[in-house]
């Protein structure tokens, strides 16, 4: 689950601040955490809002002529043709990915996604893609490090490196998303349940995807309230009419949740699910108000 620390790292990453000693750990975490990926994307957009406080300045007319002139002189075309193949391959890799900026579209796309996920078998291809990009990035880095005299060339390499990192991150995001979905969804017994909000959180909505065979489930929810520090949401799976605890989670500040329950293996065939508010850490039997329920 999400600690403030990961949120802080996501914020620093979105601002382009080097993470120092935390760099590797966060990169690794990010790869498997859809919540943090969404957070970095959201924070990047939020940071762009700061640009609005900069006063627009009309550039000199000569600049436009210069830019358009350099296109016609063909200054950029060799690079464009050189990068074409890679860029189209990465584009293909991203093509099947669902948007991850916010969960709301994801939630609605998820049901349709279940069918599309028959296509998820290309994880291996994505992994290869990622390795490719990694080694290319490393190659560019090595080239750049050899002390290239021409400033222009160094800048071009730097640019290419940035482009590659960008593609690498996109491929990683799409991998992580597929991993999570695949774990639950690749089982052919996956089921989908809709959860309705209960007063006072009647606006809350959720979905549970679960596979009895895999003993796993994923909860996607939105419009939940952020709870006081001592409280947490707890998922309950009903079996034989009795609620069995299936894990605790928090909503992010926008009220969204993407939570994978690893506890469903203990529960035979869940008849229905509910979410209650409980003391942080969870309890063995529900004590708090029901906020989401469905069967």
């Amino acid at each position, binding site marked *: 689950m999400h600690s*403030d620390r990961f*949120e*802080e790292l*996501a*914020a*620093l990453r*979105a*601002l*382009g601040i080097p993470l120092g000693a935390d760099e590797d750990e966060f990169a690794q975490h990010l790869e498997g955490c859809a919540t943090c990926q969404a957070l970095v*994307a*959201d*924070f990047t*957009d*939020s*940071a*762009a*809002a*700061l*640009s*609005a*406080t*900069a*006063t*627009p*300045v*009309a*550039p*000199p007319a000569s*600049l*436009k002529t*210069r*830019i*358009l002139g*350099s*296109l*016609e002189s063909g200054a*950029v075309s060799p*690079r*464009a043709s050189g*990068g074409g193949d890679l*860029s189209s391959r990465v*584009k293909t890799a*991203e093509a099947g990915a669902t*948007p*991850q*900026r*916010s969960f*709301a*579209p994801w939630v*609605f*796309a998820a049901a349709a996604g279940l069918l599309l996920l028959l296509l998820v078998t290309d994880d291996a291809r994505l992994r290869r893609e990622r390795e490719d990009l990694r080694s290319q990035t490393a190659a560019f880095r090595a080239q750049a490090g050899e002390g290239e005299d021409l400033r222009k060339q160094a*800048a071009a390499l*730097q*640019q290419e490196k*940035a*482009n590659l990192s*960008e*593609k690498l991150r996109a491929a990683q995001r799409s991998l992580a998303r597929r991993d999570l979905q695949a774990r639950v969804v690749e089982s052919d017994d996956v089921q989908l349940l809709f959860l309705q909000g209960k007063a006072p959180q009647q606006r809350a909505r959720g979905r549970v995807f679960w596979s009895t065979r895999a003993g796993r489930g994923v909860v996607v929810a939105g419009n939940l309230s952020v709870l006081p520090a001592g409280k947490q949401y707890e998922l309950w799976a009903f079996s034989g009419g009795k609620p069995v605890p299936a894990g605790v989670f928090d909503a992010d*500040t*926008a009220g969204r949740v993407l939570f994978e329950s690893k506890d469903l293996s203990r529960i035979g065939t869940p008849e229905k699910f509910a979410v209650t508010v409980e003391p942080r850490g969870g309890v063995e039997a529900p004590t708090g108000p029901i906020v989401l329920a469905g069967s």
Partner: protein
Amino acid sequence: MNLTRSDDDRALIARVEGREAEALATLYDRHSARLMGLCQRILGDTGEAEEVLQEVFLWVWRSASKFDASRGSVLAWLLVGTRSRAIDRVRTRRPGARAGLRSVETVPDTASGEDIEADSASRQWESQCRSAIAELPEDQRRALELAYFDGLTHQEISERTGTPLGTVKTRVRLGLMKLRDRIQPYTQRRPTDA
């Protein structure tokens, strides 16, 4: 959000991908003033801002195919690309070498100049962003501005403001969360997803 206008930007990007220089020129007319303003805010009123702007539009020309519409608007993409290039230059400068940087306090509150092309959608976006930023607690806003415009790391912000490192990280996190929560409804430009 003016969907027509924002879709318009996307159509332009698609045409740039098809090597239409005219489409790049239109994007330039539409957004160069805002991007130039951002460059000058970061780099000061120097020739470097023009160099960065040139780099950005050449990058757009080469990399239009990389624009991912699911991740936001064309303007946001341009701003992120411009800011990172400008910050890269700031970071390679020697400390203190910055020329002509305007402090936050002296920057006018509103966009000026009738000659600057700003369509209603981007003006709307701008005023939403400005009011969200104005509502931030002063210390959070300051920390974000030092990171965003001055390219300072969290350690540097901590030294510059005499604030413990942990506090700086918290301010940055809380500030971005507040901006995200306020601005998000306006950046969800894809109602067809729902």
